[in-house]
């Protein structure tokens, strides 16, 4: 690294190009966040991070150029009051919230749901709530991306209600919803340190004995607000993302039994009745009856592909609040409510 005169030679240390830029990106993100989300002014940001105000101003401009700063548009509340009312009545929901998607395509629907959910949380979250989340969901991710830290809310706890699914790569760690949400609500996160599905029932039992796992599972019944995505059964996608813990055969067997979707890897049919399958006893996470006992259980979901899964979730009354987009809402208005209430038949396991 040093040349004959003891001066530093340029490029003496070989480090991958991308990683060299990360410290810069990191600082941009911190600065942008304090300014845009926490509402600090430039001088305050400078004091907080030990920078000069000139540097802060420069970094803010850079953040915009790098696309770290995004401007999103919220749906004015009540835009779809009629649709919301119809769905609430039809499916017996406490609340339905319909966001405004510009088009009926995945990207726009996610945006609409995310921003509607962000507004919902910001305006209704109370101090001391225990928020349970399903471990991975694009809708939940969209929500945290739209969210600003609600003012005057403290001491919330974010609990992961399903073990990890997929490869725990660094990137997934980074995006861990629990962490992001915990920061937003000025609270702490409790991770479920286990995979979402394990290889066998006996492995699941062993894990259930683990003190850390037990501690987090014990928190499930304290959850006051559950935020879950709804999954449709797509064997190819699930197999790919789960690191082969699911086999295609198992998923196809579930499909043959009529499964249309899942919440936290608990599968149900189009009427919302739970479907038993190969995963029974192997899932480490909240079950559907426990989810139903949560005071506010909220499904964030929308889109054509997921419609049967959404319908099943509502018919089964596994959640009492729905956040969706207007296209999905219109489909729900046209659909039949449950014929047989699957809910009652499975409600009392004891």
């Amino acid at each position, binding site marked *: 690294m040093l040349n004959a005169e003891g001066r530093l030679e340029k490029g003496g240390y070989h*480090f991958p190009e*991308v990683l060299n830029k990360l410290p810069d990106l990191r600082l941009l993100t911190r600065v942008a966040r304090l300014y845009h989300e926490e509402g600090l002014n430039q001088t305050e940001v400078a004091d907080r991070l030990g920078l000069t105000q000139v540097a802060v101003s420069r970094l803010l401009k850079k953040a915009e150029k790098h696309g770290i700063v995004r401007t999103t548009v919220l749906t004015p509340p009540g835009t779809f009051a009629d649709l919301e009312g119809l769905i609430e009545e039809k499916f017996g929901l406490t609340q339905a919230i319909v966001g*405004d998607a510009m088009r009926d395509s995945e990207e726009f629907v996610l945006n609409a749901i995310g921003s509607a959910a962000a507004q919902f949380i910001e305006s209704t979250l109370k101090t001391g709530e225990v928020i349970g989340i399903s471990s991975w969901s694009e809708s939940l991710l969209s929500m945290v991306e739209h969210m600003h830290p609600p003012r005057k809310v403290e001491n919330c706890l974010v609990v992961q209600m399903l073990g990890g699914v997929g490869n725990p790569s660094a990137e997934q760690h980074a995006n861990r919803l629990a962490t992001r949400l915990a920061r937003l609500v000025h609270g702490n996160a409790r991770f479920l340190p286990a995979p979402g599905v394990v290889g066998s029932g006996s492995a699941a039992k062993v894990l259930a004995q683990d003190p850390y796992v037990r501690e987090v599972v014990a928190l499930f019944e304290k959850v006051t607000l559950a935020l879950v995505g709804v999954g449709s059964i797509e064997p190819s996608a699930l197999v790919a993302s789960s690191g082969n813990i699911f086999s295609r055969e198992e998923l196809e067997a579930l499909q043959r039994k009529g499964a249309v979707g899942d919440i936290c890897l608990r599968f149900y049919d189009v009427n919302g009745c739970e479907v038993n399958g190969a995963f029974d006893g192997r899932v480490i996470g909240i079950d559907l009856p426990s989810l139903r006992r949560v005071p506010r259980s909220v499904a964030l979901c929308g889109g054509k592909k997921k419609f049967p899964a959404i319908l099943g979730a509502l018919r089964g009354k596994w959640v009492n609040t729905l956040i969706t987009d207007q296209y999905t809402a219109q489909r729900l208005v046209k659909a039949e409510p449950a014929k047989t209430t699957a809910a009652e038949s499975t409600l009392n396991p004891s």
Partner: protein
Amino acid sequence: MRNGAQARLIAEVARMYYEEQRTQLEIATSLNVSQGTICRFLKRAEKRGIVRTTISPPAGTFVDLEELLERKFGLSQVIIAHAPNGSEESMQGAVGAAAAHFLETSLKPRAVIGVGSWSASLLSMVEQMHPVWKVSKCKVVQILGGEGYPSIEKHACYLVSQLARLVQGDAHLLPAPGLVASQEAADVMAQDPHVRETMELFGRITVAVLGIGSIEPSPRLAGSGSTLSIEELQSLKEKGAVGNICLRFYNASGEEIRDAVDGNRVFGLKLERLKSIPMVIGVACGKRKRQAILGALRGRWINVLVTDQFTAESLVMT
């Protein structure tokens, strides 16, 4: 009803502008209104709070985790570097680069930088640091002796003089061992004019950069011969030592353990002195160091932590 329709139109215009990134003129043309109207709508959208600015953290940054740890341990800053994998080498490289960047961006003119000398993370830091031109009249002060173990001595000297070069400042070395045999030996050492000069600067340090050591000797230390006697190590373990900063040991809640090692044997900055330094940066990573880092955080011996995402995750779980 009319109000609702207008609210919706405003939201629609805002969405076309911000989310689809169309120009005001394009939107005006497609909705068949004037550009002035579009401009007015956009202003109204902002005023009604239906437009909001959010930040999406780029991959490889861990700002959420940083803020969580800051709050959890009452730190003024946490910097989490992206380590490509969980190996010690990869973490050290990443953490060193992040610490270097942090120092480059936060250094003020006339800073007096205290440097702990026995740390691989700090070595990684200076190896990756760029020269800082905008500051002047900085001093770099070695706060723990490094003589006696050839490999450490060389590193300490390199660390301090290289950092001084990078910040265009003066290097103040502490030409003494980190551990001396006895109180008497320490007194003799302290008479040395170079040593005295450096030690007189301890009280003026504005930024301290330190490694955090576990109780298990690091490969670097083990390679250079044990520094503490077996009895001392045993006694430290019995008293619950989990880590050390500049060879001053502390337990899991961060309280200093004073009587296991004769305190006067350690030649360097005292732990409680850290509390009066405005910025104390701890640079550390790795599973081996988890307890040591936790102790340092609980004892509030540092107020800035530089680490990697794997270590950070394990800290947030506690």
